[in-house]
């Protein structure tokens, strides 16, 4: 059985949790009654104009990102020779997600004036994937074998 490094495992765990959170937010986007919000004001955030891009719910985009990250992780495990390229792609995808999550968090605090606990959870999970894939980039993509 092929071994899985700790950073790859951490990335997969965060992405899997992200699928759960983004999946829930996707359901809640279409069924407001399903949205349970213990902290903050998720309804305001979910119904703001920032909750969609060109008619596509952010939650759906987030779900797609987490599934793609899981797919890249699985492909990396199946094809270790492509690990460098796949890790670079996963890092870039997580970076895009984290940057947009940062923008959305700014919008929540400074524009909408409401915080959604699920959105914050998703942002933190994206940062978790980014950190794990960052370690992965250092250890695979940028690691060139030295003379032995």
């Amino acid at each position, binding site marked *: 059985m092929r071994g899985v490094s700790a950073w790859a495992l951490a990335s997969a765990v965060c992405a899997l949790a992200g699928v759960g959170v983004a999946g829930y937010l996707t359901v809640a986007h279409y069924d407001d009654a399903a949205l349970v919000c213990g902290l903050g004001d998720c*309804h305001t955030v979910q119904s703001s104009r920032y909750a969609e*891009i060109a008619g596509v719910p952010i939650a759906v985009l987030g779900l797609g990102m987490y599934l793609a990250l899981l797919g890249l992780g699985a492909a990396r495990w199946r094809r270790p020779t492509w690990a460098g390229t796949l890790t670079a792609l996963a*890092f*870039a995808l997580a*970076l*895009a997600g984290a940057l947009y999550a940062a923008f959305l968090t700014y919008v929540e605090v400074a524009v909408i004036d409401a915080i959604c606990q699920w959105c914050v959870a998703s942002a933190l999970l994206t940062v978790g994937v980014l950190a794990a894939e960052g370690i992965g980039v250092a250890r695979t993509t*940028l690691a060139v074998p*030295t003379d032995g």
Partner: protein
Amino acid sequence: MGKGAGRRDRRQAARVARERQMRARAQAAARRRQLGLVGGAVALAVLVVALLIYANRPGQAEEIEARTGEYPTVPQAGRVLGDANAPVTVVEYGDYQCPGCGQFATESEDDLVEDYVATGRVRYEYRDFAFLGDRTLDRTPVPGATPGTDDYRDESTRAAEAAACAADQGRFWDVHATLFASQSGENEGAFEDDRLRAVADAVGLDRAAFDACFDGRVKLGEILAMKEEARAIPVPSTPGFVVNGQLIDYRGYDSLTAAIDAALGGQS
């Protein structure tokens, strides 16, 4: 013999050095390729996010979507719709800058009016809980007002004042619907004074009468009193709904109709 061996050793050493140099070059090239891959992927990610943020940036004022002739067949008295003797009273507390209130107004209010208000079963009132206005921007202070206080000018309060002024002309619901249809961000200028005057024009209000009310801040006390009333209940978030005097746990339109149906005694 010794001379020949020395030459061979030198050639061997030169070959090893060349191979090492070639390997080092190959490694450097591989590193450059990998760095290029990571750099390219990162640059692409940043570019895509920058485009998304630009497309979705705050502060894009949208067109005013004038709504006129709202609920012509339903009795209207200012901010109240429906039969004064209806068995159930629904009071909504909202803020014209609140996206959830906008969603309710544009997606569910028609259903509420058609199914419950027009049928005489519900008396529906919209009251202002204008709390989202940013009073820290120091945009257009009211003469004599203290920044950070409730009589300071903010977009939520001003929008509520505009609707209240429209009520004097029997057009509360037209301005109410127009404001919600024209939402664009919060505290980004969508409901600055000039745009609210444009709303009055778009709906077709008597501008002289509107200006006298709006510029004179005739309705400010009424709006601030409603805000205090909402805080006292306390309404936890907007939109908040009170059905026959009971604040409900609003979780979408279905939760409101469930509360109304319960108040009506199970009839739907």
